[in-house]
């Protein structure tokens, strides 16, 4: 068979906030960088995101949160993935996230946080450097 490995990335919107501009712009940028992007749509619980990531066998999950609930929701996704045997799926995030919160989120297993103003080019670059098809 001819192999063609492709990065599969889940872009997810946990929580109740409806600001999907960033998530959609990132999804389009990853597509334009040649990746396959699964988008969950809005208002997902951490459990739904975990189940989706496992079913879709993605290489990474990008979480976009604007509501300030990141300290609860991001670790919940990381923990859920671990419990469901997806501990090797890389979790990264973006949104309105104060610098002070970032070290703790990293400790809890969120690999990278992109704060407002990050160019999509940098996100693509980071993914290419840090995530490989599994």
């Amino acid at each position, binding site marked *: *068979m*001819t*192999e*063609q*490995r*492709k990065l*599969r990335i889940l872009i997810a919107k946990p929580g109740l906030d409806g600001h999907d501009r960033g998530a959609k712009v990132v*999804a*389009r940028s*990853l*597509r*334009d*960088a*040649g*990746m*396959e*992007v*699964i*988008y*969950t*749509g809005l208002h*997902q619980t951490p*459990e*739904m995101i975990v*189940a*989706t990531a*496992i*079913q*879709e*066998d993605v290489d990474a999950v990008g979480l976009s949160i604007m509501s300030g609930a990141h300290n609860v929701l991001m670790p919940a996704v990381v923990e859920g993935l671990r419990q*469901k*045997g*997806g501990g090797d799926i890389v979790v990264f995030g973006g949104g309105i996230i104060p610098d002070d919160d970032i070290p703790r989120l990293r400790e809890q297993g969120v690999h990278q946080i992109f704060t407002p103003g990050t160019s999509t080019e940098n996100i693509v670059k980071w993914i290419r450097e840090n995530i490989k*098809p*599994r």
Partner: protein
Amino acid sequence: MISLDALRAREVRACARLMRWLDDGLPEARVLLKQLYPHAGKAWLVGITGNPGAGKSTLVDGLIQKFRTRGQTVAVVAVDPSSPFSRGAILGDRIRMQQHALDEGVFIRSFATRGHLGGLASTTADVVHALDAMGWDVILVETVGVGQDEVEIQNLAHTTLVVMAPGMGDEIQAIKAGILEIADVFVVNKADRDGADRTVRELQMMLELGSSVEEPEDGRGHESQARKDFAGPMRRLGPRGWRPRIVKTVGLTGEGLDGLVEAMLEHKKAYQEAMKDVDFKKALLRREFLEIFRRTLLQRGWSYLMHEDHIREIVEELFGGKTDPYTLAEQAVSALGRL
């Protein structure tokens, strides 16, 4: 590595992994496919195709619900197009099915076409066979839905739904020749809109005139068909005498879904009846084999050409003007046997 037991027990992680291997064309996947093959053949394969905006995903969402209430497990294969420029894709069909994300009796998987035409990904057939062998009761395959030439689904599905929505211009005309012929059930979705009844009438008229709907073949006399199979398009195989049903639905509210399921079950019954016929079964087996043969040939050929840069040698030879491409192609094919 993936164990056959885990797959047969429908463990999500194993299922998902295998899908990925198939999608990415890993050789390990083929080994598993062979092991799984004896277990396949129990699932009901349903294809859902139709225009963009006809509401296919929402309909699939509703069908999942219906089959779950009947106690059946459901796998969904949703195919979206890859961008021809970046070769990336946004797979968004499952957004409309997320309410089932936590249901362990439901497995949803999104695929990109990765350049394959015909409404499916090149590996969709393998994916569906694998899901079948894992023991999913119903497998719903949602095609890309860009309109024309999405007829590949009929070679895969037992029952094919063609979905359309009124108010999108001249619906019947819009669905290009080819796709109408593959419907076992026509679904006029978004039937709460103006024009739904007109669409139904037009479909009825078309079916009565019998102009463009060809009756499916039941495989009789399949032995003499071998030449045709390779030359022309695949013949439509299905229960003889089946007249496509027309069903109105409103995907968003679930209206009409019971009627749709009923029509689908009728077709399933007719299909199972036809399966009792040896000729029909053999025709199906032949079609399946030819399809796999075609792909195997292509893949083998391709790996040969890429192997040790054979293709470059060939181009060099052609550039030298010493020989013609026909001879070289024949030589390459003969070389395959020696691999």
